């Protein structure tokens, strides 16, 4: 499967000195660089000469370092992937145990798929840029006509996005004095999250068991936050906790929304 080394001496022959700089800036990431190398070498994307391409790729990273450019981690990850593929190609094909599928997938296949997929969106991005861009190619009427001010209107979709909400919250916290910020810091937010989650659950169904609250993730912090959340809700008299028998399930029900719902069994536990 390994291709004969069809090294075209060096890939960067045509770009000397400052020319490098241009190239360095031109690549959006490791996939972009690889596409460039494949084109440059005029090799078949379905049969990439991994050894040659890897060497050129590494040369390029070396070049970036020499130019004191930050070699982003993403480029390094790809480098190790390439080396991995290269070494897998060197392994004898029947090295797998006898039960394995008759045809091992080419170690390069995943990379090829990624490259083709990336190429597709790279092209799409170029297409997008050709569309008539508002503010560049087309303009709308100026909006500050005083005569029409009171008539102006917004579109029918809500004026607000989820992101606005988070940003608003972030702004509030950022404006707080540093000391206070810690008070409302990360652990407490976890409790708030858990309170929110429990309230949601109780909006969806009448009651939940204590165990229901611990189904998702079970880290220590999560358990503690959930436990504290239940305590907090109890303290606020927003939930009612009942237990069916001494060893039965502990039920949490909403105390606020359906007050008519009288509970049998053990009454409010005082936690």
């Amino acid at each position, binding site marked *: 499967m390994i291709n004969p080394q069809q090294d075209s001496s060096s890939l960067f022959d045509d770009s000397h000195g400052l020319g490098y700089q241009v190239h360095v800036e031109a690549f959006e990431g490791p996939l972009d660089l690889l596409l460039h190398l494949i084109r440059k070498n005029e090799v078949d994307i379905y049969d990439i000469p991994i050894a040659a391409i890897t060497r050129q790729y590494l040369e390029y990273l070396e070049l970036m370092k020499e130019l004191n450019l930050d070699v982003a981690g993403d480029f390094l990850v790809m480098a190790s992937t390439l080396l991995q593929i290269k070494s897998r190609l060197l392994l004898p094909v029947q090295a797998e145990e006898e039960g394995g599928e008759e045809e091992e997938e080419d170690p390069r296949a*995943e990379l090829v798929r990624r490259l083709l997929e990336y190429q597709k969106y790279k092209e799409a991005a170029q297409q997008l840029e050709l569309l008539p861009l508002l503010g560049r190619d087309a303009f709308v009427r100026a909006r500050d006509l005083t005569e029409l001010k009171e008539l102006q209107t917004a579109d029918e979709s809500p004026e607000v996005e*989820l992101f606005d909400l988070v940003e608003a919250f972030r702004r*509030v916290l950022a404006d707080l004095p540093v000391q206070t910020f810690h008070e409302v810091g990360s652990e407490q937010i976890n409790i708030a999250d858990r309170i929110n989650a429990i309230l949601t659950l109780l909006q969806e169904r009448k009651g939940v068991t204590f165990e229901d609250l611990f189904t998702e993730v079970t880290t220590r912090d999560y358990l503690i936050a959930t436990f504290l959340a239940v305590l907090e809700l109890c303290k*606020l008299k927003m939930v009612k906790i009942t237990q069916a028998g001494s060893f039965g399930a502990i039920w949490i029900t909403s105390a606020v929304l359906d007050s008519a719902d009288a509970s049998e069994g053990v009454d409010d536990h005082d936690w």
Partner: protein
Amino acid sequence: MHPKGWMIMTGNLRSVVESLIFVAEAPLSLDRLSSILEEHERSEIRAVLEELLAEYELSGRGIVLVEVAGGYQFRSRPEHADYLKRLSRTRPPKFGQSSLETLAIIAYRQPITRAEIEYLRGVDCGGILKTLLDKKLIKILGKKDVPGRPLIYGTTREFLELFSLKNLASLPTLKEIQDLVQPPIYEEQGELPLTVSAGGEETGE
């Protein structure tokens, strides 16, 4: 044919002038138009403006060209004012900064009292709470078991609908947003589907 070949032809000049008046922030004067379209004679532009005025006058369109404040401007036909008013009547909810902040605090910190909200925002929120209650975006969950028994607030189902949220747990956390701008941690790259699939086929999700 005009002597200067690179100039806009008359029909096209009219179209360009129309565009300029449409886009300009304020009424566009003949002076300003002449300086923008310096390749053209002032008289030529004036003629085009006269044409446009006459054309819009006759057309009965919804957009009219008026001479106002020493310039030219497109406006909506005044006779349609009653219909135009309906545009603002059907206006969707719009959020001011303070409403949004208050709503955000309640969403993320519920159950929460008014005093706690005001502590966080540093200003009185009575009016905003009332508005949010009216809009059914928040509701009173009950009373807090502390001296004074203040009301505690939380968000509603309508709140979830407004933000197309499945439930409160779907609210993005601050950390998730902050993580976007944090520099990436490369150790995590190990979980990329690429590496996984190098060993098998499943993509790591």
